[in-house]
């Protein structure tokens, strides 16, 4: 009843091409932003902010980044973790070299380095497709991980081999380092994620986004229509890696506070890939849903036994969580291979025609 587009007529192409052409969707987005920027900061406790919302947003951004490459341009990558790592190490080096520059600016700049690295490892994509390409991105993953361990310069030759984030302020508020409150870090992460998500949505609906989807759907036809495959794919690699790099830098600067090379391991790559697949390939909104599912579900699963008062060991819970996540992944792939984004659309479709079944 309340989700009807009847009576909303587009009188110009501008309106028809808006990100959210249906009025209810616009209102919905407004409500979500209101919750994110006002309600959550007012009500949530530190644990919720620091351990649920911040990682969720960081992962959402990374999932958007990978989605650009895999969901929109159709290039399967298993090197996301390493590209995030490049961002993190670059941002860390930048803060060492330019201690006085605003840390947010440095985090945003660090993405450029991972964009360059991403584009270099994207070069084979001209000749290699599908699963084969996935294996070459694994080369990036393992090689870069090795670099993070072996190149002492990257972590300022710390004896520990880890990067530790210094305390930095912006407008008198501490936003990075241990003293930064979860609330301050939350606002930074939220703002960066929302802005990048908005900007990339613009790209995705325009000429460049279309050229990526052309390559994804039918690369030969795209090429015969004047799309330069290498240029287009490399751009997707660069843009995707930029976003992942920023997410990786945020991960260490505003969430973990310190990172070892193993923080950016293949496990992270898989985690992000799951978010993208379960959320829905080729959907920015889906990236958020997938990130929420993959990050929050285990936390919930771990909390369930103690909530129910069942006394089982922490590791048993962990094992059960693994089983349940694995089973749910398979379940959702079977039920809807196009991810939560498609489920969301189906749900909206139902609302639209409600109370009639079709």
């Amino acid at each position, binding site marked *: 009843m309340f989700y009807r587009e009847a009576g909303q007529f587009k009188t110009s192409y501008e309106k028809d091409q808006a990100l959210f052409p249906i009025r209810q969707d616009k209102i919905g987005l407004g409500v979500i932003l209101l919750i994110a920027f006002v309600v959550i900061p007012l009500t*949530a*406790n*530190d*644990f*919720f902010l*620091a*351990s*649920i919302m911040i*990682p969720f947003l960081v992962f959402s951004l990374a999932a958007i980044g990978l989605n650009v490459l895999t969901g929109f341009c159709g290039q399967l990558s298993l090197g996301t973790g390493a590209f995030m790592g490049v961002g993190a190490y670059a941002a860390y080096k930048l803060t*060492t070299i330019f*201690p006085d520059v605003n840390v947010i600016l440095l985090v945003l700049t660090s993405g450029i380095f991972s964009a360059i690295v991403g584009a270099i490892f994207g070069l084979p994509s001209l000749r290699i497709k599908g699963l084969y390409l996935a294996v070459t991105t694994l080369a990036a993953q*393992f090689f870069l991980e*090795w670099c993070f*361990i072996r190149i002492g310069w990257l972590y*300022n030759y*710390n*004896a*520990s*081999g*880890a990067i*530790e*984030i*210094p*305390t930095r302020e912006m407008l008198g508020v501490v936003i990075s*380092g*241990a*003293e930064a409150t979860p609330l301050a870090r939350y606002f930074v992460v939220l703002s960066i994620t929302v802005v990048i998500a908005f900007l990339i949505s613009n790209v995705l609906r325009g000429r460049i986004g279309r050229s990526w989807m052309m390559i994804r759907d039918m690369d030969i036809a795209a090429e015969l229509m004047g799309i330069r495959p290498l240029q287009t794919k490399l751009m997707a690699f660069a843009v995707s890696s930029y976003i992942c790099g920023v997410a990786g830098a945020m991960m260490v600067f505003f*969430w*973990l*506070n*310190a*990172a*070892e*090379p*193993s*923080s950016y391991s293949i496990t992270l790559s898989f985690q992000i890939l799951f978010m993208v697949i379960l959320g829905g390939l080729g959907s920015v909104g889906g990236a958020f*849903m997938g990130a*929420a*599912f993959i990050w*929050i579900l285990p*936390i*919930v699963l*771990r*909390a369930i036994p103690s*909530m129910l008062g069942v006394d089982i*060991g*922490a*590791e048993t*819970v*962990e094992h059960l969580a693994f089983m349940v996540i694995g089973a749910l992944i398979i*379940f*959702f792939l079977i*039920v*809807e291979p196009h991810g*939560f984004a498609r*489920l*969301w659309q*189906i*749900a909206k479709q*139902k609302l639209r025609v409600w109370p009639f079944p079709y």
Partner: protein
Amino acid sequence: MKHLKTWSFAAALAVGVTAVGIAPQPVQAQDSNYVPLLTYRTGPFAGSGIFIANGMNDYLQMLNERDGGIGGVPIEIEECETSYNAQKGVECYESTKGKGALVYNPYSTGITLQLIPKASVDKIPVLSVGYGLSAAAIGNVFPWVFNAPTTYWDGASVVVKYIGEQEGGMENLQGKKIGYIFLDAGFGREPIPLLEQLAETYGFELLQYPVPVAQMQSQSSQWLNVRRDRPDYMVMWGWGAMNPTAIKEAAKIRFPMEKFIGVWWSAGEDDAGAAGQDAAGYKAMNFSGVGTDFPAIQDIKTYLVDTGKTQTDEEMLGTTLYNRGVLNSVIIAEGIRTAQELTGKKVINGEDMRMGLEALNLTEERLAELGLSGFSYPIQITCEDHAGSHPVFIQEWDGERFVKISDWIEPMSDVVRPLLEAAAADYSEKNAPWPERSEACAQ
């Protein structure tokens, strides 16, 4: 199918909504002292982690069962599984710190590094018993971090000292080759600066064999290199699945086991046991007692193992790493007791705990009172020295069990201490602005 889709989406939504609902509220338990234990009983490091987790758990639980806790207040123990994973470790930290956590034992150098800067902000001390950041020994720079009884650098100096003794004097180290095989992570790399320094001082050659975490279980290349380089001694800094593999590989290339010395984290019975008789002669450092001949361990058996209140098997009691976990909990318990004495409070908080740990003095008499006579070298922590650089001993695997073969060996504090201070200064400079110590010294 259509219905299934709608339902599953509803389910997913419900999960999301519940997630928001379950965010735990900060609870300050009024009638107990809350000690979260960051453990790992799963993952590649579980082989070592389970022993530690059981040891830590059992001693505290035994105090609850036998004495009703510490100072009449029960200890609330909560395990949080980290799988040795830094992300999960931080999540565990965030989810437990609001409940009035007294102290954290991350059992991972990676997680320790993440908690160090948070400790002073959240006012909860970090206790890394014989691991973590060596430089944290400098109490004036790291008032919230404790790494008693000794640091990796102290340990590395003991190894070199011991090798020197074997060779009949430190001067005989000249021209010798010492191989260092280590887990290529923060943990394994910690001692390198000290080893390099000692190599320069004593004129031996240090050969490094890093083992990446992903390659822990296939070390044949590292050991082939060892075979080629023919070092006179091998020193190992390993953990989890790395240990048994390394010892097996060493046996495979016929490296003389009696010249292979591990850090105290490579001292597990399962580590050496994997190669059985072939590992006879393998040595490891240790600072906690081996065996069950301690009244406190017997109490654990009586109160917990025999009554089935623990996951610990009887065979696990008294093993090196299990006892290490016990020692860890002894330090926690004594820290709580000291804090109670200092503050006069029964239920303490993290700040009190910090004072308690800083004033910790585990004398020989006190150890005897605890039923742990000779279990550990007397441990004393001071405001300046949070590690204490206590001596360690060497134990040898005889094919079936570890046997203590040396006296307590003092580390080369004269070399180590200045390096620790330099490292602490370096840390605070790299992490500027690092807070100045503002906590008063309780002693």
